[in-house]
């Protein structure tokens, strides 16, 4: 590393992808306009096609990388996710914000 980097990278380095889930976030996507308000544009974790407990494992791995107070949106079509994501939030003392179409489940990091 003798050549100095001319500029810092524009985005964060990609997260490890070894767990089989697509962890693309809205901020990674250049086909969408960048939205300034973090509250309106939560990070997205796409676990569609995965069966429980994989979406919950993915959520548990990803949430700690977000700042406290941030919201992570988990896309999961396994019917057990609707039950197990709120249950995980209760066991781990994070805030389950609610569900929306997708099906998507929003979780706020509490600590």
């Amino acid at each position, binding site marked *: 590393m003798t050549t100095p980097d001319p500029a810092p990278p524009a985005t964060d380095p990609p997260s490890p992808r070894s767990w089989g889930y697509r962890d693309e976030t809205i901020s990674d996507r250049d086909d969408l306009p960048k939205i300034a308000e973090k509250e309106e544009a939560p990070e997205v974790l796409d676990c569609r096609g995965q*069966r429980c*407990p994989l979406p919950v494992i993915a959520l548990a791995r990803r949430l700690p990388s977000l700042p406290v107070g941030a919201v992570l949106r988990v896309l999961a079509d396994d019917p057990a996710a609707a039950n*197990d994501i709120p249950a995980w939030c209760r066991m781990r003392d994070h805030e389950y914000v609610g569900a929306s179409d997708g099906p998507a489940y929003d979780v706020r990091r509490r600590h």
Partner: protein
Amino acid sequence: MGTAGDQAVPGTAGARDEKPVRNGQPTPTYFDAASAVPLHPVARAALDAALDDGWADPAKLYAASRRANHLLEAARGAAAEAIGCRPEELTFTPSGADACQRAVAGLLRGRRRSGDTLVHSAVEHSSVLHAAQAQVDSGGRAVSVPVDRLGRLSLDAFEAAVREPGTAAAAVMSANHEVGTVQPIDLVASLSAVVGVPLLVDAAQSLGRVSVPEGWSVLTGSARKWGGPAGVGLLAVRAGTRYDAPAPPPVSVPLAVAAAASLRAAVAEAGAQAARLSPLIDRIRSAVATNVPDVEVVGDPVHRLPNLVTFSCLYVDGEALLHALDRRGFAVSSGSSCTSSTLDPSHVLVAMGVLSHGNIRVSLHRDTTESDVDRFVEELPGIVAAIRAQAGASRL
């Protein structure tokens, strides 16, 4: 149940610590009493005798037929006495599920002039829920009453539901088959009786384990869960209940005799078995909570069946856990979605709002020994840890 019992340690009556050995291999440890238990020795003896004496068609007029009919009547009498009803109020059905479905249909039909709504707890056995769905499909209504995190029925919601005009019948199980929570049937029965709504109590899990509930209009049970043969259910309808259903198809006389004999034995032994098994369940509950990280023991810790415990392990695939336990010789059950044919999680765990993945139900019976339980609590932490490590979920 002979050979192993001869070596039992004196003073451990009923708790045989030597496992039966067949072909030099120890028999697997069977922990799924909530589905079925091995035949009670009394059932086997009664079945043998009834096969000799009760093989004939009980509906004919010759001597062999009269003998079979006499045995069937004696079986009804013994079963009725065990649950506290009159013999004419009791019939045998082809299964416990059949008894439940028949009971719901009979109550709804008998009360069709009063209403078309079935009120039931959210955690009833699927046979009751299917009967509720059939009522909805045929233009009636079904109201599901919620339970709390421990699986306890909301009595306020139940009372409000049975008081609604148009309520024809109510169904509340005595104890839940997946988490073991025991419902306050005496209170449920008086809330129903006040408004004249007949109550079906599915007692499949509690007969022969805790005292027989009171206050029911219809009571159902399943012989293979109390040590009787598979293929016999029990349906008791209190005299005076508005009930309209065709008689169930005739049940094999020898099976009915074996079911009744074992019911009487199981009810008589229930107190002693509960006193022996309850501390073993307590041992599993505390060992699981202490030695397995991130586990949720579910169900009411106090008002529960003495022989059943259910827990959910975070980040663990229920099917993988079931198979791993099976390889170590433990037969258990699971409410996780991956173990069900529909891939839906257990409606009981969902109604309680508890974790549904990594779920294991352990249910003990009269042949369970202390060493079975010791081996389970010893091996479980390592099995769970190995599955988590494989999923990369060890330190989440």
